[in-house]
């Protein structure tokens, strides 16, 4: 019999897939966790069946604001598989550059949110300040800061001029020093270590049993990275490492993300140096036939997989999407049970999902209800 049940969620600024949790407590220790999703469900898979392929690329870009180009690249790659269409090498490089820069913004955001949950608001502000360098690069390349609609069937929509390449290289050079400072901060600061080391441990068996993906899997020692496995876009010709860590706790997940930021900067610089004049788009040969295809990419949070099915018209017959946060929801029970209530925001932020800490606590004791605000549990507002 639990003497407290906390409703947690569902809305939070800035992270995908709001989730509603019910946490069952006995004193301060968590006994059980139940979750409900559906607060972000709009019916996109059905709505995509009513639009042409070329228009549905814009809708898939708006499934998630942070992994926008991951979704649109995966979808466009699937359409190109249905049509057996090969895209020019320059288009592959431009897609890779936008993808990696977006991964950089996502990891900076996650580390910032982790700082905010601990109470270290200066880390939050620092991460968001460094993000502005990357968003400036993205605005130069694609024209928009957050939701970039750069993909089209057969290639990309915008070209890179030598001035843009020079400015982006300069920004990435400045950013590298700032990320070095962040790494020193995270590894040397005693407070961050006290709040994250040993919290929310996941070992290799859990990862393989529950089919977890992304930095969560890599922080427990499983080197599952679709960029090295499938070698899609231009990743076959680029040199980078798959970062893993053996501990599997919240600190390991944050550390893997910080190390991956260096790999993103390296990949973007390599790709920028390989850009040569050439075409950016190949025209597709219509019409579509009845075919099925699977497309996978490594989004910032993990493996993103699409199943596409076409008929003889130019509208998709069926689109099925499985996002990485959805796959990682299964480990919520494992990382929260057995810890104290104050460790819940830290574990959830290290998973990098979308959760809100503005909900209320309902304490039911002896049949009487009492409302406590989540901020009082944070203790730093």
């Amino acid at each position, binding site marked *: 019999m639990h003497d407290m049940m906390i409703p947690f969620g569902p809305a939070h600024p800035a992270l995908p897939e709001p989730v509603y949790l019910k946490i069952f407590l006995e004193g301060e220790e968590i006994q059980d966790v139940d979750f*409900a*999703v*559906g607060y972000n*469900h709009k*019916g996109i*898979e*059905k709505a995509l069946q009513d639009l042409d392929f070329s228009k549905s690329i814009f809708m898939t870009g708006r499934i998630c604001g942070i992994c926008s180009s991951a979704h649109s690249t995966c979808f466009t790659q699937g359409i190109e598989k249905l049509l057996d269409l090969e895209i020019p090498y320059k288009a592959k490089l431009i897609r890779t550059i936008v993808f990696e820069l977006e991964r950089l913004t996502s990891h900076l955001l996650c580390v910032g949110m982790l700082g905010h949950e601990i109470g270290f608001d200066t880390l939050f502000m620092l991460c968001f300040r460094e993000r502005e360098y990357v968003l400036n690069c993205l605005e130069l390349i694609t024209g928009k800061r957050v939701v970039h609609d750069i993909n089209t069937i057969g290639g990309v929509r915008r070209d890179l001029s030598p001035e843009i390449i020079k400015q982006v290289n300069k920004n990435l050079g400045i950013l590298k020093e700032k990320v070095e400072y962040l790494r020193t901060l995270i590894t040397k600061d005693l407070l961050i270590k006290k709040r994250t080391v040993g919290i929310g441990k996941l070992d290799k068996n859990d990862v*393989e*049993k*529950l*089919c977890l993906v992304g930095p969560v899997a890599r922080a427990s020692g499983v080197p599952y990275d679709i960029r090295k*496995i*499938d070698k899609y876009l231009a990743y076959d010709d680029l040199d980078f490492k798959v970062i893993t860590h053996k501990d599997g706790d919240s600190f390991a997940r944050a550390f893997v993300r910080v190390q991956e930021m260096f790999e993103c900067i390296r990949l973007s610089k390599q790709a920028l140096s390989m850009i040569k004049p050439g075409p950016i788009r190949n025209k597709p040969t219509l019409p579509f036939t009845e075919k*099925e295809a*699977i497309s*996978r990419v490594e989004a910032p949070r993990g*493996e993103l*997989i699409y*199943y596409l*099915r076409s008929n003889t018209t130019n509208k998709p*017959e*069926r689109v*099925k999407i*499985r996002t990485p946060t*959805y*796959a990682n*929801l*299964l480990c919520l029970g494992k990382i929260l049970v057995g810890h104290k209530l104050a460790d819940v925001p830290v574990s959830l932020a290290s998973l990098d999902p979308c959760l809100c800490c503005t909900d209320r606590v309902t304490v039911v004791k002896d049949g009487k209800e009492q409302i406590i605000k989540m901020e009082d549990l944070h203790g730093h507002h």
Partner: protein
Amino acid sequence: MKLIEELKKIGKVYKEGKNEVWFIVPYKKIKDAVKDVSNSGINRISLISGYDNGKEIEVIYHFVKENFLINIKVLVPKESSEIQTITDMFPGAFLLEKELSEMLGVKIIGHPKPGKLFLPEDYREKPPLRK
């Protein structure tokens, strides 16, 4: 690959591509096919997709071994609309099966926690992705 030879005895290959193979197996033999996959050492399932083609519901299980994809299709008749769970061999399919049952109205026999996931509690119309 040894698994492909074993699966060819149960069903047949209808498509092959670079690093992927697509099987179609009879409705009654799906549990044997999944058991073969699990015994061969594969423990990762990435996706379960469903499609209503008018007469039946096509359910495809997508298993992953590093860069190789094994896709197993089974046709579920619409009158019964039920299929056995695979969460005993693949615990990672828990949420994927729930989504299949909600969006396409397929009952999963033996699922540890059936119930609505995405749609509101008072949603009474037919499943959204049925024709």
